[in-house]
C-alpha cells in the first residue's frame, strides 16, 4: 500500500517538474520564427495580436466610411449598428446565458417608444433619452425575466413570443399616448455646428458611439466572473448551482441586461428614423433578430455585427431578387448559411482567420 503511495507521489512530483519547463518555454515560443529579424518579429507579433489590430482597423474604417459614401448608404450602415446593439443584447441572453427570447422586438419597440414619447411630449434633450429608454427596457426585462427562472426551452420561447404578439395591438389601443396607428413623427437630432457634419453623418456617429460603448460593456461583462457564471448556467445548470451560482439571479439579470441593450438600440432607432409606429415593430422583427444572431454567430463577440449586416441587408436583397416572395428567399438564405456555417458567420470567419494565421506562421 505504501508502495503505491510512493509511486504516486513521485509521479505527481514528476508532473509538477514537467509542468515548470513548459511554463518557461511558453513565452519563448511566441517570439520564435527567426530571432533577430525585426520584420519576422513584427509579423509574429501581428499574427499573435491580430484581434486588437483587426478591431482597430475596423474602427478606423467605420470612422472613414461616412465621408466616402452617399447618405443612403450611410443610413444603411447606421441601421446595421442599431441592429448590432440589439443583437449584442440578444446574444448575451441566447448565446451566452443559454436562454431564449422570441420577443426581443418588443424590448426594441419599448426603447424606441420611450425615446419618442420623451422627445415628443417633454422635449427631453435627446442624449438623455438613451439612458432612460435603456432603463425602461431593463425594468421590463427584469419583470419578464421572472418566467425565465421557471420555464425552459419551448415554453420560454412561447411566453416571450406572446409579448411580441400583443405589443402591436397594445400600442394601437392606447392612441392618446402612443399616437395609435399613425405613430409619432419627431425631429431628428441635429448635428452641432462645430462638427461640420451632415445629419446622416452625425446620426451615424451617434450610433457608432453607442455601438462601441455597448460592445465594450458586453465584452467586459463576458470576460468577468459574471460572464463565466452565465456560461456555466448555459452549459450545466446543476453544476453551476453547486459552484454557488444563483440561478434565478443570473437568469433574471441576463434577461434584464439583454432587454436593456435592445432598448438602447430602439432609442437610437428613433433618433435615426425620426418616426415610430406600431407597424415598425411587427412580430417578424423579433424573429428576424433571432435569425440574425443565429446566422451571425451565437456566443461570439463578432456575431452581433455580422448579424446586424444580415438583418439590414438580406431582407432587402431578397426583395430585389424576387419581389413576390422575399420571405422565401430570406428563409432559403438562412438555410444556406446554416448549412455552410453551422456556428454562424462568426464561426466561419474565425475558421478562416485561423487558417490564415497558420499559413503565415508556416512561412
Amino acid at each position, binding site marked *: *500500500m505504501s508502495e*503505491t*503511495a510512493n*509511486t*504516486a*507521489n513521485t*509521479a*505527481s512530483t514528476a*508532473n*509538477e517538474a*514537467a*509542468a*515548470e519547463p*513548459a*511554463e518557461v518555454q511558453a513565452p519563448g515560443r511566441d517570439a520564435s520564427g527567426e530571432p533577430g529579424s525585426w520584420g519576422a518579429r513584427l509579423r509574429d507579433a501581428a499574427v499573435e495580436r491580430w484581434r486588437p489590430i483587426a478591431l482597430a482597423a475596423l474602427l478606423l474604417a467605420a470612422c472613414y466610411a461616412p465621408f466616402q459614401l452617399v447618405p443612403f448608404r450611410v443610413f444603411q450602415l447606421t441601421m446595421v449598428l442599431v441592429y448590432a446593439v440589439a443583437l449584442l443584447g440578444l446574444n448575451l441572453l441566447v448565446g451566452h446565458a443559454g436562454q431564449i427570447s422570441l420577443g426581443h422586438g418588443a424590448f426594441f419597440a419599448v426603447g424606441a417608444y420611450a425615446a419618442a414619447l420623451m422627445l415628443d411630449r417633454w422635449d427631453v434633450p435627446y442624449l438623455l433619452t438613451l439612458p432612460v429608454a435603456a432603463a425602461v427596457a431593463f425594468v421590463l426585462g427584469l419583470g419578464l425575466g421572472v418566467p425565465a427562472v421557471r420555464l425552459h426551452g419551448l415554453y420560454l420561447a412561447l411566453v416571450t413570443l406572446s409579448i411580441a404578439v400583443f405589443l402591436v395591438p397594445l400600442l394601437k389601443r392606447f392612441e392618446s399616448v402612443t399616437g395609435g396607428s399613425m405613430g409619432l413623427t419627431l425631429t431628428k437630432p441635429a448635428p452641432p455646428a462645430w462638427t461640420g457634419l451632415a445629419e446622416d453623418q452625425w446620426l451615424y456617429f451617434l450610433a457608432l458611439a453607442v455601438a462601441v460603448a455597448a460592445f465594450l*460593456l*458586453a465584452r*467586459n*461583462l463576458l470576460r*468577468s*466572473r*459574471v*460572464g*463565466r*457564471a452565465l*456560461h*456555466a448556467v*448555459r*452549459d*450545466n445548470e*446543476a*453544476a*453551476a*448551482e*453547486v*459552484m*454557488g*451560482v*444563483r*440561478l434565478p439571479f443570473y437568469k433574471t*439579470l441576463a434577461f434584464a*441586461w439583454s432587454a436593456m441593450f435592445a432598448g438602447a438600440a430602439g432609442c437610437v432607432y428613433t433618433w435615426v428614423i425620426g418616426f415610430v409606429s406600431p407597424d415598425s415593430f411587427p412580430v417578424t422583427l423579433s424573429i428576424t433578430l433571432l435569425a440574425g444572431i443565429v446566422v451571425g454567430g451565437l*456566443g461570439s463577440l463578432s456575431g452581433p455585427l455580422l448579424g446586424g449586416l444580415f438583418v439590414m441587408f438580406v431582407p432587402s436583397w431578397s426583395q430585389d431578387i424576387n419581389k413576390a416572395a422575399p420571405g422565401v428567399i430570406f428563409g432559403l438564405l438562412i438555410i444556406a448559411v446554416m448549412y455552410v456555417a453551422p456556428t454562424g458567420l462568426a464561426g466561419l470567419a474565425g475558421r478562416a482567420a485561423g487558417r490564415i494565421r497558420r499559413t503565415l506562421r508556416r512561412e
Partner: protein
Amino acid sequence: MLEVRDLTVRFGGITALDGVGFEVRHGETVGLIGPNGAGKTTLFNCLTRRYRADAGTVRYQGADLLAVPPHAVAALGIARTFQNLGLFPRLSVRDNVLVGAHHHGRAGFLSAGMRLPGVRREEERLRAEADGLLRRLDLAHVAGHPAAGLPFGTLKRVELARALAARPRLLLLDEPVNGLNSAEVAEFAGTLRAVRDDFEVTVVVVEHHMGFVMGTCDRVVCLDFGRKIAEGSPAEVQQNPAVVEAYLGTPA
C-alpha cells in the same frame, strides 16, 4: 465536522435512503461504498441540497445544512465532483476552474461591465489562484483548451481542480477514478493524498474501486439499498460478511 442522522429520501414508492447516519471528523477521509443503487449519489445530492430530505438531519460545523439554499452550500466550504463529470464543456479548462471560485468573487453585472479597478484586481487574483491550481494538478498545458474533447483522465483532474478552487473544507468526490486505468488510478490517489494534506480538506469519497478506497480512506461506510450496513476501518469493512454479501450475493 459533518453529522448525518436518520437521513431518509423517498422517490415515489422507492426509499433511496433509509435512516442513514454517520459522522465525518475534521481532516478525515471517509469512503462511501456500496453496490449500484445503494443511495451513495443520492446522499451527496442531499448534502449539496439538490434533493430534499424527507426525514433526518445533517449538521455541518454545528449548523443545520438542510436549511441552507443550494447556491449557498459552496460558500460554506463544501465542494463536490460529479459521477459522470459535471464540467462546462464549452468553457476553457481555466474558466471551468474559475467558476469553481465563483463565490470568492464580488463582481456584479454593472461593476464587471464597466471593468472597475476593484473588478480588475479581483480578476487578477482569481486568475493567479486558478493558474496555481492548474500547475499543481498538471493542467497548465491545457488551460486554454475547451473542456470538451480532452481525455477522460484529464477531465477528472479538471473537476478536482475546479472543486479545489472553491477552497473547500469538505470535499465530496463522486467516483473520482471511475473509468480510469490502473496507472491513472494510482496517480489520482497520489494527487488526492497530496492535495488533501496541502489544502487541509476533509474528504468524503464515493468509489467502487476497492484498491483506491483501501489506499486513501481512513474509514469506510457501506450502504446497501439505502441502509448503512457497515462502518469501520477499510480492512474491517472489507471483511464484514454483510458487505461481502451485498457485493457478491449470498452463497447458493
